């Protein structure tokens, strides 16, 4: 443990409509692993992005080695020795590992524009040797697993002589073995005197890796504690603080509820293998798993967005053929994509148009004229029912907040008379306050007799909301847990139950997903 490497005080940051950071504080020492925890939207990433020069702070000051510094660009942060490894990795897949590490400051020889490829490879090899990492610098990044790509990012950060290394949820997409390898390297760096910030909401990791923990909640600094002297339970209570969410809804009273949707033996290439699930009326079914486990693929297959190789889908006990999203909508199934801006909304159109978009046929009169009075009253009905905050029906959807946009998508599917709603990461990118409203909405929908499948990477969210949890790993369902059985640990165990060992350095489903993203 050394002196303060970085000290952030009174940091304030607002985005339109959100007060993301409210007078935040953070201290990082040389030679420590400092965990930064908090629920989604607590402001962890935002605070660290301020430190890494990606966001400009509105107020407050940053001290680096005791000197007040102004960090106005990623480059300025790197020059000081502060590097951040983002959740979505920033690599050029078409270039080699070494070319990625030295992008922007390639060694030259002969002429000022002539690349010294050998030096690039040698220097990268040196970095890898220092990290005790076995990887050929000449491998193309596109051919690496997500875990190995992360190692490349770390090597890149170290090549800047980084004294402070910020890692945003580095373990989110890794398997147990890969996490071990990552932790080995993190410990190695700590022993070399690097200060490491580890952002995570997988609390079981904290005990393994961190020396101190800082907890944030709702954009505020809560406390910093020594990991050794604290329990996971006390960290959780600091994270949650007040209960801003509705408690879990009661299970539907009637135990033999109608089965709304049943999937039998669904297969699709290597992505999905033998998927079976049942969804009852009034039920919220959580679908958990790591990135790339195939959860979204299940949703897309049910919704007819992707073709299936074999399998059966039954709606209210009747076998149905779903080949296109249009078929799915006709059978009362709605899908709310995690990327609602790309797939869920016509952003530049108004609220009214978006609400009636999936059920447009209903509003067409003779000669294909749109019956405006009807679309307006329908939109009005759902705006009121869902408490969508919009000045008028004619407001463009892109001007609404994330939470209200999500509600517009829900309104769209309700207007289309759907009984089964598949929510893919319903609260991603939505701030804390609006989140509880989305949860309330999900509960209301379930109470009204809709069946809901909720895909989420946020374990607390899965635990809080689901009546039942299905866990996936590598395209297979690895287990089903009742709400009583479901714990973070139980879910993580199932989510990392791999079918076969994937060859080291080979391409697996994770890296494929990363490339697609």
């Amino acid at each position, binding site marked *: 443990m050394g002196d303060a490497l970085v000290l952030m005080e009174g940091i304030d940051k607002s985005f339109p409509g959100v007060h993301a950071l409210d007078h935040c504080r953070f201290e990082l020492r040389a030679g420590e692993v400092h965990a930064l925890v908090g629920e989604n939207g607590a402001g962890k990433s935002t605070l660290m992005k301020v430190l890494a020069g990606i966001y400009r702070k509105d107020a407050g000051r940053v001290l680096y080695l005791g000197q007040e510094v102004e960090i106005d660009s990623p480059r300025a942060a790197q020059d000081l020795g502060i590097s951040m490894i983002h959740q979505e990795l*920033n690599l*050029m897949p078409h270039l080699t590992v070494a*070319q990625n590490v030295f*992008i922007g*400051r390639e060694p030259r020889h002969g002429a000022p524009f002539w*690349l010294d490829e050998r030096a690039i490879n040698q220097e990268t090899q040196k970095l890898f040797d220092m990290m005790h990492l076995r990887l050929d610098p000449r491998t193309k990044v596109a051919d690496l697993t997500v875990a190995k790509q992360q190692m490349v990012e770390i090597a890149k950060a170290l090549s800047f002589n980084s004294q402070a290394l910020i890692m945003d949820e580095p373990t989110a997409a890794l398997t147990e073995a890969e996490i071990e390898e990552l932790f080995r390297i993190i410990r190695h760096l700590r022993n070399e005197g690097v200060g490491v910030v580890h952002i995570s909401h997988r609390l079981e990791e904290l005990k393994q890796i961190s020396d101190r923990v800082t907890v944030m909640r709702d954009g505020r600094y809560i406390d910093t504690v020594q990991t050794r002297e604290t329990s996971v339970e006390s960290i959780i209570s600091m994270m949650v603080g007040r209960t801003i969410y509705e408690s879990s809804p009661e299970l539907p009273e009637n135990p033999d509820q109608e089965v709304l949707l049943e999937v039998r033996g669904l297969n699709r290439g290597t992505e999905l293998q033998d998927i079976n699930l049942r969804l009852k009326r009034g039920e919220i079914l959580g679908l958990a798993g790591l990135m790339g486990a195939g959860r979204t693929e299940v949703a897309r297959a049910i919704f007819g967005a992707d073709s299936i190789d074999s399998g059966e889908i039954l709606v209210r006990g009747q076998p149905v053929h779903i080949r296109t999203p249009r078929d799915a909508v006709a059978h009362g199934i709605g899908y709310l994509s995690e990327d609602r801006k790309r797939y869920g909304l016509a952003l530049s159109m108004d609220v009214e148009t978006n609400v009636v978009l999936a059920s447009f046929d209903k509003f067409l009169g003779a000669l294909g004229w749109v019956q405006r009075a009807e679309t307006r009253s329908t939109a009005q009905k759902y705006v009121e029912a869902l408490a969508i905050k919009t000045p008028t029906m004619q407001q463009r959807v892109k001007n609404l907040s994330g939470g209200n946009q999500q509600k517009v998508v829900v309104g769209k599917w309700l207007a289309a008379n759907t009984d089964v709603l598949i929510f893919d990461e319903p609260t991603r990118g939505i701030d804390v306050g609006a989140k509880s409203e989305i949860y309330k909405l999900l509960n209301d929908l379930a109470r009204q007799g809709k069946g809901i499948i909720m895909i989420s990477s946020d374990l607390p969210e899965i635990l809080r909301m689901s009546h039942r949890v299905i866990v996936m790993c590598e395209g297979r369902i690895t287990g089903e847990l009742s709400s009583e059985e479901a714990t973070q640990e139980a879910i993580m165990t199932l989510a990392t139950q791999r079918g076969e060992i994937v060859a080291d350095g080979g391409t697996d489903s994770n890296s494929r997903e990363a490339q697609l993203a």
Partner: protein
Amino acid sequence: MTTDTTELSTTATQRRTLFRSDATQKLLAFAGLIAMFVVFSLASPNFFKFDNIIGILLATAVNGVLALGVTFIIVTAGIDLSVGTVMTLSAVMSGVFITYWGLPIPLGILAGLGTGALAGFVNGIAISKMKIPPFIATLGMMMMAKGLALVISGAKPIYFNDTPAFRQMAMGSLIGRVFPGFAVPNAVFILFGAAIIANLILTKTVLGRYTVALGSNEEATRLSGVNVDRWKTAVYALGGAFSGLGGVLMAARLNSAQPALGAGYELDAIAAVVIGGTSLSGGEGTILGTVIGAFIISVLTNGLRILSVPQEWQMVVTGAIVILAVYADIIRRRNQ
């Protein structure tokens, strides 16, 4: 350390398999080229003759040089629609320097190259600084260059009758003097020389590295501290310089700068790049592929003409080949 070397050798095998799949596309394109040669040679006795082969090579020279420049731009995930008319404008500027102003030929050639580079630079500024989409920016440049070529030349061809050395530069044959009977025009060697330089730039220089990086992940490149705007401008300027070279070759070959010619050349150049396996989504592409692509187009055009296929049908066939080539590439990627 012994374990380290084994590790290196296993990843090297991985690399080789990867290399093989990259090479497959070029092999496929090259095999296609050979197949066309065989088919046309069998179909017509006039195809595989020295004069005709020289004709094909010459026809490829201009389109090939244009396609070299377009390769860089497409690798950045951009597009350049202005190469055809910028070529024309460059030819006109060479004519102005040499014929109108009576300046030395090398200056005229430099004027052509410089005009192209300047037009490309303007494209680059519009795209990187003004954030105009490449399609629109270069569409505007395409029209501007076309208009300027007509204005400057007074819509009349500029002939190089007083400076026969200008035509000789491209159409003469240095190698023919050494090996009489093997009179391959210099223009063909200029194409190959330009291709070698382009390949060195793409694979060995900073500019080439950032060209690939920009196309692979522009945001990551920016976050790595690379001055993305400046390098993107440089890539478009380089592409423009190749258009300028194309213009000089064109003018020398016709012994005149034809201000009305040039529109449509950009599409042939883009087609050559795409047939050569360069991905329109950026990040990958090779000079060798582009050269093969350019040859496929000229062999096809030439062969069909020799078989007396009407010009209209030649277009239909060329278009179909472009679609098939890209489809083959998509299939290959999907199977990877």
